[in-house]
């Protein structure tokens, strides 16, 4: 009587859980072609599309596509501080990230705010607030990286004084190889809690880069990396 009553556990005995059956986790590399599941090489990024000035009435705006990941960024201001907010000798930045039909992790907002405060020359507009609105239209992986690029472009489009334009990128490490610009399916396929990966390390890095100054304005890493 090893089988139990529940359908879920019964199907698990065949080697799959219910979640696995709904979203099968494919290996990162297709063994037949030697390429990734969507036909890219390991160090090939998805087609990138950028456009600025998509919204007339805003100060600056941009639209970025990383493959099927689509992000719109709108910059408003700098405008006077409202009376509710305390006086600030430097400029302030407020970041708001929204997504369509879902919830954005709170971390994204904090990370973006830190990154934007690092690149914008805040001393240029004291007592004022700059509003950055980001909307993730579709998240098919590397959404934070796309947000970084979109925000950088929108700031440039709006003529906001910045130290440099920031470019975002995500990298996936599965213990053996580095995968550029992973898709949502690839990110989900990497199970960081699996014992095999723990032995060799593996993780996801998102980096916001300032190319002409050779600096990083945003960095986050999850997983485990061995020395």
């Amino acid at each position, binding site marked *: 009587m090893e089988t139990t009553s529940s359908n879920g556990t019964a199907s*698990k005995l065949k080697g799959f*859980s219910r979640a696995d059956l709904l979203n099968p986790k494919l290996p990162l590399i297709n063994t037949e072609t030697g390429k990734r599941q969507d036909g890219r090489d390991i160090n090939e990024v998805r087609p990138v599309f950028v456009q600025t000035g998509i919204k007339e009435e805003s100060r600056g705006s941009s639209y970025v596509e990383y493959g099927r990941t689509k992000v719109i960024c709108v910059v408003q201001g700098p405008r006077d501080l409202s009376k509710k907010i305390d006086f600030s000798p430097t400029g302030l930045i407020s970041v708001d990230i929204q997504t369509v039909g879902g919830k954005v992790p709170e971390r994204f907002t904090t990370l973006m705010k830190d990154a934007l405060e690092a690149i914008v020359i805040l001393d240029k507009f004291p007592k004022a607030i700059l509003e950055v609105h980001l909307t993730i239209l579709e998240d098919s992986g590397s959404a934070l990286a796309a947000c970084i690029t979109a925000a950088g472009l929108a700031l440039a489009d709006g003529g906001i004084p910045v130290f440099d334009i920031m470019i975002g990128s995500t990298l996936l490490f599965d213990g053996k190889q580095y995968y550029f610009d992973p898709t949502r399916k690839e990110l989900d396929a990497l199970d960081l809690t699996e014992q095999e990966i723990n032995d060799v390390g593996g*993780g996801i890095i998102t980096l916001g880069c300032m190319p002409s100054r050779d600096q*990083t304005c945003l960095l986050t890493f999850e997983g485990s990396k061995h020395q």
Partner: protein
Amino acid sequence: MAEINLSDEEKYFIIVGVAQDIRADGRARLDYRSKEIEANVITNAHGSIRIKLAETDVIIATKVELGSPDEDKPELGKLEFLVDCSPLASPEFEGRGGDQLSETICGILTSSYSTSGAIDMKSLCIVPEKFCYVINVDILVLQCGGNLLDVIAMGCKACLGICEIPVVTGLRFDLGEPTPVFTTDEYEFTYLDVREAPVVVTLPRVGRYFVIDATIEEESCSKGKLAIGVTSKGDITSIDKIGRCCYQLRSLAASIKLAAKVGQGLNKVLLEKIESIKSQKKQLINPDFPEGYIRRKTYKELVAGVDVKIVRVADVATVFAEEFPTATYSKPYLTEKLNQANFFSSDWTSGED
């Protein structure tokens, strides 16, 4: 983080001091302040720690609950962090002021614990898809004297290490659904294996140098910091950049190496402390307690230990007849009645074979 306003002269003094490797309190750049760990300060919790590092004072308590696993991770237990920044610690935390800091700390702790496999989350699962242990880690910041994140991470590791998880003694099959049965003995518990759990090393950059265990004054001199999760082997489990700063790639690499070195030492000290707290507890309960970690039974082992599984109408009738031999109802009568009442849903009774 909570910051204080310093004049330019004060900042200059601190930065020049750091550059000469003598800080305002006499430490070198890579020295920690002395810390004080007090165990089981809260009696209602399954494990609690009060950790003090100079002025920073944090209470951490764990509470183990029975919950159900996430749908996409049916075989893993859950670990949840909650940070409460008390207005006692800093006037900035009043109202919703501490929310952003809490979110940041929770995010860093979650990314360094849950996703890196530092703790074997599979061992926290009782019945796949149905029941798992949920460990709530509640963190209360009483006073903030700099280096808050390191202190919280250290405390979390210690607190999870001494957290007493009640043992599941067996399974009961209620109408075919496996239900865990917990022990009633308060001294029958297991510990989590936290040997691979990370500590967080934050590295604020004061002037041109990274410092370790910064005071609140030193934190005010730096624009931002790197928070790096390090395990006892020196592996990196998470990196986060906090604050409005930029780093060159080569200084990042250097700081990660530095953090790995410091983190290894920190882990070693902390594990010794955890072991000493555990051995004190062991002396208190029973000195003959077996050495090492008691392994929690897996689901398969629990199922194997079940004598009677009530999965069919006939089983209920059999058990009832065995338990109450003097009852007036006979087994065929009971079976018929139960079938009439449609007591069990048809989908699993028919799919039994």
